[in-house]
């Protein structure tokens, strides 16, 4: 019988820690998540069931430390030449068990990319924040506070809005930034965040990249308020909520990269967001394959197992064809991020646009395939017990976040066709 490891991966450029990551995370998934995940939906507010799995993965196994330099207690992944390939494998394995855990874990790295990755490693801020993540056995969550009430993910549509729609302000007062604003939806908000990376502007309405600021704000700073988590269709492990910043003061050096560079390197965070999204889709679809394998082997129609029914086999083939392609695409994009010498910088318009294209291809295909898989399983397809509907709900969320499909389409068209006004 085929295994998920039979789906193709580019063996010639896997990261040196690929096998290690894969092994420990798969063991964690089998023990800490898969036996419990069908009860996660009821745990969306309290995380009594979910929290131990996070603690083991991020604190116990130490995976929340991986981006920081080794001398600060990290694993040095941020200055390696396989950051993206290793990240992809890690996220794929976690998402096979639960993509909600995958996104909460992955997003913890999201603001840290701004300060841990070469060539813009910010040593001072790494030293500042490394102890928070590296000297604990508990899971510690970070979040990117981007989306705002008035225009949703418009902020991520950087080529058009260029920061002009950002209403959260950062004002320099002596040696401190004073931050005011209201953010919605950050993954890892809803009360659990320890460190925010806040997208803000130093001059409201400005399209000057120098006015775009990415500033770190410890969640326990006076003036930071996290609302209760939102209830969603899926991804119970991922808490999202409102966050208010009222006269929040942080040191001047908490700005990630500085004028112009915050704008530039924030696009790298978007590239990693797209890579993570593809990894979540790929991981979840690996598990969908496992579920379908079990169902279609052991359910019968006219005396033959479902997989031996030609029409059903046609659907199964369509689904695995897409899984195969999504995985190859994810690794290809990882390699593009890992080799800027060949493909261009991670923050270039080209890399961002291609990431958007791959992300929306992967999530569109997966959403459609999951719908077909559920239909193939008849009423069992909507049973929580079979867990395929969980992936259906979760992957729909992946498809919709980060500006959704339309933003992906516009960025893709803009780069390939040199559109000027989209």
């Amino acid at each position, binding site marked *: 019988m085929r295994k998920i490891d039979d789906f193709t991966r580019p063996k010639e450029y896997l990261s040196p820690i690929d096998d290690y990551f894969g092994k420990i995370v798969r063991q964690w998934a089998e023990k800490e998540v898969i036996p419990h995940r069908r009860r996660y939906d009821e745990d969306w507010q309290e995380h009594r069931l979910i929290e131990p799995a996070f603690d083991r993965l991020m604190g116990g196994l130490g995976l929340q430390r991986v981006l920081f330099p080794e001398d600060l207690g990290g694993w040095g992944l941020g200055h390696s030449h396989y950051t993206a390939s290793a990240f992809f494998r890690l996220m794929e394995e976690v998402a096979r068990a639960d993509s909600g855990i995958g996104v909460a874990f992955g997003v913890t790295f999201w603001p840290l990319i701004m300060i841990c990755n070469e060539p813009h490693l910010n040593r001072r801020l790494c030293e500042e924040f490394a102890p928070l993540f590296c000297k604990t056995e508990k899971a510690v969550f970070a979040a990117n506070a981007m989306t705002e009430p008035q225009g949703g993910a418009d902020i991520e549509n950087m080529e058009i809005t260029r920061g002009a729609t950002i209403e959260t302000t950062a004002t320099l007062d002596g040696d401190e930034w004073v931050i005011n604003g209201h953010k919605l939806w950050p993954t890892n908000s809803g009360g659990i965040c320890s460190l925010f990376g806040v997208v803000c502007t130093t001059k409201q309405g400005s399209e000057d990249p120098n006015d775009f600021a990415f500033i770190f704000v410890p969640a326990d700073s006076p003036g930071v308020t996290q609302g209760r988590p939102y*209830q969603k269709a899926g991804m119970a492990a991922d808490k999202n909520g409102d966050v208010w910043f009222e006269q929040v003061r942080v040191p001047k050096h908490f700005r990630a990269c500085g004028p112009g560079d915050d704008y530039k390197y924030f696009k790298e965070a978007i590239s990693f967001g797209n890579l993570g999204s593809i990894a979540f889709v790929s991981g979840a679809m690996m598990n969908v394959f496992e579920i379908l394998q079990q169902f279609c082997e052991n359910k019968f129609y006219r005396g033959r197992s479902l997989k031996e029914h030609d029409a059903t086999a046609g659907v199964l083939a369509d689904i695995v064809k897409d899984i195969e392609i999504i995985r190859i695409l994810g690794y290809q994009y990882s390699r593009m991020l890992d080799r800027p010498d060949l493909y261009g910088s991670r923050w270039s318009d080209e890399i961002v646009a291609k990431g958007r294209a791959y992300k929306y291809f992967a999530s569109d295909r997966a959403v459609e395939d999951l719908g077909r898989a559920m239909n193939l399983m008849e009423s069992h397809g909507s049973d929580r017990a079979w867990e395929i509907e969980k992936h259906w709900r979760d992957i729909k969320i992946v498809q919709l976040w980060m500006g959704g499909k339309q933003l992906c389409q516009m960025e893709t068209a803009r780069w390939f066709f040199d559109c000027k006004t989209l």
Partner: protein
Amino acid sequence: MDNMDIFPFLKDSAEESDILLAQTLKRWADRSVISKRLEYREDYEKLLKPAMQKLFIDVELQKMIWPEQCGGSGLNSPEVARTLALALEQVGRADTGIGYLCSVTFALCSSFNFDCDLNEQLCLRMAPLFCETDDPVIGSLVLTDFAHEEPSASVPLFRGKRIPAKARREGDSWVVSGEKMRPLNSGCDAGLFGVFCALENEEEPGLILIPGDSPGLRRGEPILKTGLAASINAEITLSGVSVPAGNLVFRGEEPLRRMLSWLYLNIAAVSVGGLFAAFEIIREWGDTRVIKGKGNLFKENPLTASLMAEIAHEILLNRLLLHQLAGMLSNPDIYRQSEKGQLFISALSVVSHVTQTAEKAINQIMELMGSAGYATEWNLERYWRDIKTMQVHLGSWELNKMELARYFFRSQSL
């Protein structure tokens, strides 16, 4: 503008009373469900159960298709198809789960209380359950399974599908047995089950009515599922349940297909109602959201407007299809006499198309709304989960297509 006006249907065939009923149900939907769902989400006790009480008892939907002589409203002729289409649209708009319960209940009762198939004795015996009570009563069906677990030749099959229960005749009774059978809905609280059974010593299987309080009927634990919160489903086991011989509603394929045709009509109507609700949500979004900075209304952007147009296009076509099917079912003299099985094939095609395109349309609306699409606060994602759940309850589309192939191409071995 009201949804009943913006999306056309065959108004020339609708009675004034049908329109009035739909308007009453719209008011019920707005007051009993839509205005309260932000507070109660899908809470069964606080939202769904009180709404069902009003719908089934106060609005008297529970009595609607029962003969007058049995205490019903007397809409027990096939002409009620048009009434049902308009009514269930509104119920589905409020809550697709409640609409689904109505769909199955009406389909079950249609099999013995419509004047063309009237079983008067059975009607008189079952009517008090529905017509002389102040509590909602839900009907449920236990039908054939496409995919089943036992490959052995001993499993009774009907057109390749497993027959879930067996019944043997003992004097004036049928004794029915079946293990861990999965009803279409409400295994925990249905008041009446129609169970498709292999009949001992008979070639054709049949549908037998099993009242919910029958000795020997055991209900399992509630099944956790994606949607349809109003349907608290569970497996049921029948251990030698004895019912009067007259509880056998029908034998064979043709009456089963007639009943299924009504089920499909009802589910298609509920799905169109779900699309109406989704339309209202995206219309509000398009009227109020801005993109690409301040001042650019969502509905004025060519890309998003194009997708919104596709969604409206699907709703419009689905409603036309639904009411065409209602017209066909309401004219059995014309359509039952045409090619054998045509009505069933039309109903199967329409409900499959409506539920599949409804899934696609709501998927697109969710895409347009981004994170709000999956936040329960916006009330869209519940329709997405409900319609998908109804769709998978219709059976695998891959295997349902075999029915179409058999009909259109005379395939013999499928």
